[in-house]
């Protein structure tokens, strides 16, 4: 029993830590609808700034508290900077574009922090009071744990008072429910957004500073915390602060007791919890169904047949791609092969995300399952490469159909996060099944068949399959199925009222997208000669998202352009600079500002305007 009590307290302390980060994220999302990927970066900055302040301050508790508050103010200030210089310019852009912008910020902050604070982990020397403990039920409970246990509910209370007892809070709540209404009431929305973002950033920074007594400021903490924070926010219900606290409790307590019973569950627990919650409650624990955002219709562009000029351009690009091996060296060829794979991967995500309206944060699941499907076929069934390349899309498609059954019933960020949960479950399965998959060391020796061993031949094969796959997806979008899919996205109500089974249509699209991603994964497996769990990692899913958003969600050429631009930039920068993250991040930010509809989307818009003028 004593152990249960102690573990309960430990769980409560962990819950508070989680809540501090998640509360800021949920407040920001609730009001601005920004999926703030850089929230983890603000948390990391909080830890580093906190370290710099607290190591210089006296070691007494009151100075510690002051240092934490100062850190929160500092990150709040960084939040203001971020909001006014970047996010404010793109609120009118298509949904999720802000995610792309904040992803650029994540990359930049990683290099900036490395430059400012160096590569070593920085730990804050703990004064005596931070090391002290209280004996409860015969067990030592760290004093700081008790502090944290108190801070969580205090912050919750403070936020509640702020939102219910102040005019500002009333406006924020109103904005959470209906942005347009608040704007119509003549409230300065810009100021409201900026202040909300500052509050969220300050909470993140405070969370980072408060993580110092238990650990260190390090360069991995941004990405470590961001996924957990998102899970908490989604499980709690987007925009619900109380829900975030409830979700933090649920996850932290399950974790505290879960690792006693099943020590290896650490990899997957939070995602399994999220999957279960979302399947049972599609809007999280305390979330409300999202109100149909007004004015969104304007964002949806018509899909017209490609113009003559675009067709010529495409044909020219294809000819160039066909002839490339005659000029390109082996390395350039491998980069081009990678680009082709990326094109199909991005096109497959675009298929469900653009016309299907189903953004996914876990698209790497299907890419990875395709890769593993090919690797299993090659290594265990000893099948030749063509069979492996058939197995890849089939395996991915079957899994997508299975998981999709749950996924397509959801919408928006909830849907995206459920795909992430499934992707993480798949990842953990591949990671943990060491006997079959080799765990994180992966499966090696998945090299192409002898007839395709020449990089040029393999390139042409990849070109054929990826171009065919991408064109097939494109063709489907112009076919009745594609119209039905867009119909389900544009107005599910109307679609059902003209006899369309929107659930089935969305599931079919999800499965097709998974199948195509699986083919891309299979090609990638043979092209790299190996398969790893990293193929299913969050980073890989983010890559797909970045490519689609960079190119433009609303144009069919978008994912192609985005994939070429992103992989091209990445590969080139990796060769020329140590600071590739800084440059790539800055490039993404600039591209977002210059092409708010995505590269292809904005170019198309300018082109059409030019023709109509």
């Amino acid at each position: 029993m004593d152990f249960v009590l102690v573990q309960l307290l430990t769980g409560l302390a962990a819950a508070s830590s989680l809540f501090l980060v998640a509360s800021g994220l949920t407040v920001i999302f609730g009001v601005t609808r920004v999926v703030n990927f850089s929230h983890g970066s603000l948390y990391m900055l909080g830890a580093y700034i906190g370290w710099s302040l607290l190591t210089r301050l006296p070691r007494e508790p009151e100075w510690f508290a002051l240092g934490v508050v100062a850190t929160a103010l500092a990150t709040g200030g960084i939040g203001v900077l971020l909001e006014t210089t970047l996010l404010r310019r793109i609120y009118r852009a298509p949904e999720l574009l802000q995610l792309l912008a904040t992803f650029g910020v994540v990359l930049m902050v990683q290099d900036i922090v490395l430059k400012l604070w160096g590569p070593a982990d920085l730990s804050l020397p703990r004064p005596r009071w931070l090391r002290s403990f209280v004996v409860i039920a015969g067990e030592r409970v760290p004093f700081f744990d008790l502090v944290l246990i108190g801070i969580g509910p205090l912050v919750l209370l403070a936020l509640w008072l702020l939102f219910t007892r102040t005019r500002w809070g009333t406006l924020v709540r109103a904005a959470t429910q209906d942005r347009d209404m608040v704007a119509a009431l003549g409230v300065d929305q810009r100021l409201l957004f900026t202040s909300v973002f500052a509050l969220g950033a300050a909470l993140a920074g405070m969370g980072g500073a408060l993580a110092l007594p238990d650990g260190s400021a390090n360069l991995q903490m941004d990405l470590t915390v961001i996924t957990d924070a998102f899970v908490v926010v989604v499980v709690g219900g987007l925009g619900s602060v109380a829900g975030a606290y409830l979700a933090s409790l649920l996850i932290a307590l399950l974790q505290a007791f879960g690792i006693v019973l099943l020590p290896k569950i650490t990899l997957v627990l939070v995602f399994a919890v999220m999957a279960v919650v979302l399947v049972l409650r599609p809007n999280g624990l305390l979330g409300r169904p999202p109100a149909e955002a007004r004015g969104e219709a304007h964002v949806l562009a018509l899909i017209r047949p490609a113009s003559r000029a675009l067709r010529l351009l495409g044909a020219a690009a294809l000819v160039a791609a066909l002839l490339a091996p005659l000029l390109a060296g082996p390395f350039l060829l491998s980069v081009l092969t990678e680009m082709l794979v990326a094109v199909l991967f991005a096109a497959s995500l675009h298929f469900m995300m653009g016309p299907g309206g189903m953004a996914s944060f876990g698209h790497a699941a299907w890419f990875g399952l395709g890769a593993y499907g090919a690797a299993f076929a090659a290594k265990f069934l000893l099948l030749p490469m063509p069979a492996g390349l058939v197995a890849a899309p089939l395996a991915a498609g079957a899994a997508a159909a299975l998981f999709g059954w749950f996924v397509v019933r959801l919408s928006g960020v909830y849907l995206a996060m459920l795909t992430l949960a499934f992707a993480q479950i798949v990842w953990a399965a591949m990671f943990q099944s060491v006997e079959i998959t080799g765990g994180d060391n992966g499966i090696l020796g998945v090299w192409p068949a002898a007839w395709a061993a020449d990089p040029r031949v393999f390139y042409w094969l990849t070109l054929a399959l990826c171009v065919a796959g991408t064109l097939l997806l494109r063709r489907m979008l112009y076919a009745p199925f594609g119209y039905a899919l867009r119909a389900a996205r544009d107005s599910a109500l109307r679609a059902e009222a003209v006899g369309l089974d929107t659930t089935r249509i969305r599931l079919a699209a999800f499965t097709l997208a998974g199948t195509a991603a699986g083919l891309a994964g299979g090609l990638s497996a043979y092209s790299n000669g190996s398969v790893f769990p990293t193929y299913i990692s969050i980073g890989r899913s983010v890559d797909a998202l970045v490519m689609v958003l960079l190119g433009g969600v609303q144009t069919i050429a978008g994912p192609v352009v985005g994939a070429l631009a992103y992989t091209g930039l990445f590969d080139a920068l990796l060769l020329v600079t140590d600071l590739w993250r800084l440059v790539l991040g800055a490039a993404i930010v600039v591209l977002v500002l210059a092409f708010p509809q995505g590269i292809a989307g904005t170019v198309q818009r300018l082109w059409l305007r030019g023709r109509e003028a």
Partner: protein
Amino acid sequence: MRISRRTLIAGTAGMLAAPAIVRAQGSTPIRIGEINSYTAIPAFTVPYRMGWQLAVEQVNAAGGVLGRKIEVISRDDAGRPPDAIRLAGELLNDQKVDLLSGTFLSNVGLAISDFAKQNRKLFVAGEPLSDALVWENGHRYAFRLRPSTYMQAAMLVDDAAKLNAKRWVTVSPNYEYGQSVVKWFKQLLAAKQPGVEFVGEQWPALGKIDAGATVAALAQAKPDAILNATFGPDLTNFVRQGNTRGLFEGRGVVSVLTGEPEYLEPLGDETPEGWIVTGYPVDSVTDPTNKAFIEAYKAKFNELPKMGSVVGHALITSIVAGIAKSGSVDTEKMADGFPGATFDTPFGKANWRALDHQGTLGTYVGKTALKGGKGTMVDWRYVDGTDALPPDDVVRKMRPA
């Protein structure tokens, strides 16, 4: 911060400025391709880079090898195996490097090793600890410098047995390195100390340890001793919670890698005393070779070397020695010539084993202690890699023919 590329370019520029010398030697520099996770794992790889930069400088100052200078072409793999493989291709085909080297992560190391096998090019791995690199997946062209997870466990197991503890628990990051350390440690300790029991295990996800809960769960098993394989940020969290909650009091702790400066330094004045660890007692080594290395490193970078620096430095000297013995940079000649080559490292002499291409570079085993508010290693001894490897026939069975 000192950044490699700038110094590298400066070095290259220096050579270009003296073309007469190069021409006099009648040849171009030997090109060593190097790949590592510079942005993904900077805490280790930044000192590592400084280590090989120093070695390159020293080797070239001493006239290079085979009458040629050496040159390192370095790439960042961002911690992603597929990117590492592509970059290996770039180094091979575009940069025309004579051999490949580097890597930190085991999966990246294994991927490049497989690439090297496919392309019949030499690959000298520095840091990756996976046993598979030279055993299950070993091949003619792959070499690995550092003591593997097996060797790390084997080096610690003697002292662990001396603890005479019956009930053990383990805490280890949940991936191949952690799993492998625990597997070997259990196996070797059980052989040495019959009747030993492993009564609990914790597998925190790398970088995501829930330290309070982990510590409480370990204490719950009422162990006599603890095996730890966490490192980096996880280790700091674990030690702090363990200290406050008294997990380590009256218990023996055996801890892999913890004595390495990159992981010991962040523990600061909370470094627990008396842990049996592998590492690098950089502040107290007495061996003249090691001291010379430390002095040279300090002179160049104005800080003490870390374990990564040693690996980076020894990687270059081990390659240079292999090339010298082979008398050529032809891949087949190097694959024949590297085995048996002896090289100097900051830790002393080592060689490339002919049996499995494992380097015999060892590491220090000692106890952690606090000195002036900082963690350090005491009662240390250097364990040569040769002494921490299984019998030859066992190795032969694990290595594919």
